[in-house]
């Protein structure tokens, strides 16, 4: 595989740069994770088929999960693989297949094509700015262990769980409300309106059938225009009363 082959000299180089500071195995894990993450990220940005972009995103997510393990965040690495790679990317692929956009396309199109170098320049500017600002402030400042120490005895999962369910209990509960809102929003956004759409209404007008009233559209009863006479014959008083 290309990322693995590319990571070996990278890890060796990193080993030479600071030999004796860190373990060779840690540097190897860092090199492999970095190569996977960067290669996947470049693939997401540059590949032309959205399905390939989604698969590159999986590569990046696995690389970042590897780095999480290297940093001792075991629980987050597992959640990263399960939630991100297992659920979110599958959701992306579902939507790509549902919409039928799984074909090659230009990386960028339209009148903004001349602005692509500007976009890349802004991206490089973001990186340079972040690095300069971090370097000038000695990378990490602030108090240590204000919300629970990471080191010490105990498993990572246990300590993280205790922190979330004590100190961060209110945000955790608000999260559940957020998820409910997201589910309801997804249902409302994607649900087809139960009444006939514009195309069906035009077809009904062409056939000389009566137009359903707006209140009939809003009702939950799926009322296709062809089914209207049957409803009248069956003696559905509510449906009949709503028609003009």
């Amino acid at each position, binding site marked *: 595989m290309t990322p693995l082959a590319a990571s070996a000299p990278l890890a060796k180089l990193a080993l030479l740069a600071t030999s004796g500071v860190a373990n060779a195995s840690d540097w190897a894990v860092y090199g492999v994770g970095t190569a996977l993450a960067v290669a996947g990220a470049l693939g997401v*940005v540059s590949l032309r088929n959205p399905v390939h972009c989604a698969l590159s995103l999986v590569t990046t*997510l696995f690389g970042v999960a590897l780095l999480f393990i290297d940093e001792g965040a075991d629980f987050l690495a597992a959640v*990263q693989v399960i939630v991100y790679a297992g659920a979110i990317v599958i959701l992306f692929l579902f939507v790509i297949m549902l919409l039928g956009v799984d074909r090659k396309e230009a990386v960028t199109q339209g009148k903004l094509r001349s602005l692509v170098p500007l976009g890349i320049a802004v991206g490089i500017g973001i990186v340079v700015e972040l690095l300069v600002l*971090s370097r000038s402030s000695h990378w990490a400042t602030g108090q240590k262990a204000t919300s629970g120490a990471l080191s010490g005895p105990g498993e990572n999962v246990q300590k993280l769980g205790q*922190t979330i369910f004590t100190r961060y209990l209110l945000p955790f509960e608000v999260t559940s409300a957020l998820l409910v809102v997201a589910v309801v929003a997804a249902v409302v*956004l994607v649900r087809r309106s139960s009444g006939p759409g514009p195309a069906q209404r035009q077809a009904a007008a062409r056939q000389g059938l009566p137009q359903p009233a707006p209140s009939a559209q809003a009702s939950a009863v799926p009322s296709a225009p062809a089914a209207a006479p049957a409803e009248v014959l069956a003696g559905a008083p509510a449906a009949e009363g709503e028609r003009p």
Partner: protein
Amino acid sequence: MTVPGPWYLVLAACLFGIGGAGVLVRRNILVMYMCIELMLNGVNLTFVTFSRMLDDLGGQASVFFVLVVAAAEVVVGLGIIVAIYRRRTGATADDVSSLKG
């Protein structure tokens, strides 16, 4: 002794920058969403690295909440994208400018 923290911060900045450039360059709405996920991953890596450098569990708890918010964001965003594609096929981000004043 593990790999020093600044190395992770450099990688996280690179992920964030690549994602930001992708959001600016790509016009397919779905791919733009994937680039936003890339930026979120860069931020998550920064959180975990600061958590290790400062010996603080708050960073990892923050990543937990970022994951939940990212999941909710993707659900709502993909719902909006499906609704847009249902009205017009082959829509890019430039086509959805109906609200422009």
